[in-house]
Structures are given as structure tokens and as C-alpha cells.
């Protein structure tokens, strides 16, 4: 704010606001979870592989789990490389 109704800084994008937003989002997750990474993910992965193996013959490294956190939703993306046809089954599942 300035007495003369203009400020030299006004032309600049406010990166401090970006910093604040990023931190709020990250810390909300870290505090809620006790960590940024839900601890069940490794186990979830093992269970998924076990279930998938009942039907399809996949190796450990053909199952890939990714997560992306956003303001309102977090998404968990599970990619499975199917052996023979070399096609990818993509099953994004919403979490919370």
C-alpha cells in the first residue's frame, strides 16, 4: 500500500503468496498424516500386487503407484504394465 496510490512493487507477481499457499497445502497433509507420505502405501502396493497376481502374471516392477496432492483432491494413480500385449491399464482412484 502506498500513500500515492501506486507502488513500485505492484508490477511484480507476489511470489510470497505462492510460497504461503504451497506451505499451507503441504503442512496440512503432513500434520494430518503424521508425514507427507501415508505409511500404508508400501503395504497397499504389496496387497495390490497380490490381488492382481491372482488373475494376471505381473512382476513386482510392473506395478507403479503415484500420488498427486491438490487443494481439494489427492489422486492416487496406479499403472500396471500388462505382460503380453504390453498395454497399460490405468486406474486412477480418488482418495478423500
Amino acid at each position, binding site marked *: 500500500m502506498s500513500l500515492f496510490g501506486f507502488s513500485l512493487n505492484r508490477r511484480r507477481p507476489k*511470489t*510470497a503468496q*505462492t*510460497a504461503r499457499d*504451497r506451505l499451507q*497445502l*503441504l503442512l496440512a497433509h*503432513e500434520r494430518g498424516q*503424521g*508425514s*507427507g*507420505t501415508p505409511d500404508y*502405501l*508400501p503395504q497397499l*502396493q504389496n496387497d495390490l500386487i497380490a490381488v492382481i497376481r491372482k488373475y494376471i502374471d505381473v512382476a*513386482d*516392477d510392473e506395478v*507403479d*503407484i*503415484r*500420488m*498427486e*496432492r*491438490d487443494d481439494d483432491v489427492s489422486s492416487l494413480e496406479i499403472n500396471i504394465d500388462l505382460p503380453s500385449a504390453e498395454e497399460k491399464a490405468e486406474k486412477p482412484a480418488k482418495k478423500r
Partner: protein
Amino acid sequence: MTTQLKDEAPLGRIVVITSGKGGVGKTTSAAAISAGLAQQGYKTVVIDFDVGLRNLDMIMGCERRVVFDFINVIQGDARLKQALIKDKRLDTLFILPTSQTRDKDALTQEGVEAVLNELKEEFDYIICDSPAGIERGAQLAMYFADEAVVVTNPEVSSVRDSDRVLGLLSSKTQRAEKGDSDPVKARVLLTRHDQGRIDRGEMMTVDDVLEILAVPLLGIIPESQAVLRASNVGTPVILDEPSSAQTAYKDAVSRLLGDDIEMRIESERKPGLFQRLFGRSA
């Protein structure tokens, strides 16, 4: 900004960014250097060794994409491929985040070695962002290094700690213990350099620091407002808007790659009133 593709076997070179003293600019430098190498077309991964105080992810701007981490990989809970985060700006750049909940005891020498060996198969440069101090975490970050960037501020305690770290690099690393290989190639990166304060006699000069530490200089990074800006938005300063720090980091990356370029002292010149009124020259 060309990204050339390389067909040859990866270089597999391990570079530790270390300092002893905390808060001197290791993470800022690790982010900038790894992005700079990736920009030059080298497949690069940057690893956060600061277990329990994860920060590299924020500086790189990938904090929302962390699922598995370095510790998960060491303990066999996840595969390396799953923990590596691919940078959204450069397809040659990857980040291996650390755990925010565990402590340094979760790192084992065998575990670190196994991960580094796997990374060497695929990457040209493996940049290790060391925690502060000279304890276990810092020692493991440097143990397998081929090269070291010793981040130093022109200030007494930082220079003293750098000297201590240089001692560890020449005694407590695999290269030192083996004896038959070349020692770790260590160079100083002088950061938060403030020419104004040097001119006023308030800060040690580059020559003062180099004379004391007696190792070659990798670069001089000026104190720059661009560093805070870049960290706010989660972009390594070398990929952010042009700045004195960006130019200086680019020069340092070139020297790391073996180019012999003249040492120049960038400084952040705030335009004076005269320049603001009559436009900038130079």
C-alpha cells in the same frame, strides 16, 4: 537451452554438495547445479540426504508428488523407479526425496551404496544434497562421492567448517580409504558473496577464503534476491527468471563439466535513482 540426447553409457558420476555449517546454501546449490546439468543434456538425479528435514522437494517444486522416498527404497518398501520423481520442466532431471518422518539412523552404508550403484547404471550425474554437520548423515552423503562441492560463505565459522569437511573428504570417503584411486575432487563454491560488504571491508574476499582453504574455486554465487523468489515458487534459481545468481550458477555448472571459463564476480546491482530515471545502460 538445448537438450542433446546421448547414446553412450552413462557417466555415473557422484557429486556431493556439502559444507559442515548449516544454512550456507547447499540445497539451493544442489537444486541449481542438478538443473543446470540436466539443462546441458546430462541425465541427472538429485538426492536429498537430509533425512527428517526434507526440503529439496520444496526447492525443486515437487513436494506434492512425493509418494515413496530414499528410505523406503533402502528398506525395500519401494523400488527405486517408484521413488524417483521426474521433473516437469526438464526430462533429463529426476529427484529422489528423503523421508520426513525417519531419522538419519535409517540410512545404512550398504543401503546407500546399493541405491547409488543402481543410479550409476542410468544417470550421468548423481548429486547428493548433504545435511549440515559432520555426523552420520553428512558422512554417508560424501562417502561414495567422486567429486565434492564445498559450499562456503565468506564468514569465519563457515570457512572453518569447510576446512573440517575438506579433511573428512580426504580421509573418511571410499576414495580415501581405497588408496589406489584418485582422491575426491573437491572444489569450493563461495555463496552469498556480497561485493558491497567486501568493498567496505566487512567481508572476507574470495582470495582470503581460497588462501585459507587451499582448494580450487568452482564459482562465486552472489547474495541475490532471486534465491528467495525461486524458493517461493519452487523453481531452481537456474531455471527461474534471469538473475545474477543464475548466471553465476551456470558458470559453475560449466566448470563442473570441465570448461575453463573465467571467474567473474556477478553482483546484484540494484538500479540507482539515476539509472531508474535515465534508463539502464549496461
